[in-house]
C-alpha cells in the first residue's frame, strides 16, 4: 500500500474503459460509487472487493468535495477506470481527478481530517481496502488520486523477494 507521490499517473496513456464526469455535488456520490463497483462486479471482482471499491471511491469523492472544492457543488470531478493485468494478476485502476487547488501531496492526508472528524479515518479506510493509493498533482491544475484494487488478495510486501516492484509501478510504462 502506498500513499504518496509518484510519477506514475496510472493511466498508461491509454483511453480509459470508463470515464465519468460529475459535478462535485454530494447528490451524485452514491451513483458514482455504485457505477464503479458494479463495473468491478461485472469484471469478476468478488462482492467484498466491490463493496470496498465503492467505499474507497466514496471516501475519495467526499474528500474532493469537502476539501478540494470547499463544498462547492458545481465543480468537475472525473473518474476513470481501467482494468489491467500484470504479474500479480487482474486488477482495476481507478483514477479520480479534480480541478481543485493543488496541495502538497505530503500534506493531503491532513486535509481529510475535518471531514472525517475523528481524523485520518477516511484515508485509513482507503489504505485498508485498496492495494494502492497515490496522490499527485495534475499537470496544469487539480489533484489526481490513483487507486488500485487487485482481484486476488493484496500481495504482502516482501522486501527480500526478487525486489518486487511497487504494485503501482508494475505493468505501466508511463508516458
Amino acid at each position, binding site marked *: 500500500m502506498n*500513499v504518496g507521490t509518484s510519477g506514475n499517473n496510472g493511466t498508461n496513456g491509454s483511453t480509459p474503459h470508463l470515464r465519468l464526469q460529475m459535478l462535485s455535488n454530494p447528490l451524485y456520490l452514491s451513483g458514482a460509487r455504485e457505477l464503479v463497483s458494479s463495473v468491478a462486479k461485472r469484471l469478476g471482482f468478488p462482492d467484498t472487493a466491490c463493496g470496498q471499491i465503492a467505499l474507497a471511491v466514496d471516501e475519495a469523492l467526499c474528500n474532493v468535495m469537502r476539501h478540494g472544492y470547499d463544498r462547492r457543488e458545481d465543480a468537475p470531478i472525473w473518474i476513470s477506470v481501467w482494468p489491467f493485468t500484470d504479474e500479480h494478476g487482474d486488477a482495476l485502476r481507478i483514477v479520480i481527478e479534480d480541478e481543485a487547488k493543488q496541495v502538497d501531496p505530503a*500534506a493531503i*492526508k*491532513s486535509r481529510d*481530517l*475535518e471531514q472525517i*472528524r*475523528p*481524523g*485520518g*479515518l477516511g*484515508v*485509513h479506510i482507503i489504505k485498508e481496502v485498496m492495494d494502492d493509493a497515490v496522490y499527485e498533482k495534475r499537470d496544469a491544475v487539480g489533484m489526481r488520486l490513483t487507486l488500485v484494487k487487485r482481484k486476488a488478495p493484496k500481495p504482502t510486501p516482501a522486501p527480500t523477494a526478487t525486489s518486487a516492484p511497487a504494485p503501482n509501478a508494475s505493468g505501466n510504462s508511463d508516458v
Partner: protein
Amino acid sequence: MARVASTPLLALAMLCGVAALSGCLPSESVSLQARDPVKRMEAIVDAAEEHDRSQIPGLVKLLDSDDPATRMLAIRSLEEITGETHGYDHAAPRLQRDKAVDEWVAAVESGKYGQLSPVARDERRSRSSQP
C-alpha cells in the same frame, strides 16, 4: 515517581462525567490531558488538523489509554502527523499494543520527529520496554 496513572485519570474522568450530568463541572479546556473525553477528542483532532508535532508525545501517551476510542483517535492522529503507525493497532491486545508504544516512545526519543519533550508514559505500561 512518574505516576500519571491512567486509573486515577479514569476515575477522574468518571467523576467528571457525573459532574457534567449535574451541570456543575467548570468547563474544561480542550487538551490531550482533558478528563472530559469530548475535550480530549477535540484536542486529538486539532493536533492532526494542524499537524502539530509538539503534540506527538501527548498523543503517544494516549495510545496507552484504557478507552479504545481514545486510542483509535490518537493513532489516527499520529498517523496523520507522521505518516507512521509503528504497527500500533488500537484494538490489539495490551501486550501487542505495549510493544508498538515502545516503538513510538523510542522514535520520539530518537529525535526522529524533532526536538520533543519525552513521553510521560505511565510506569505500569512502560515496563515492557525494560530489559
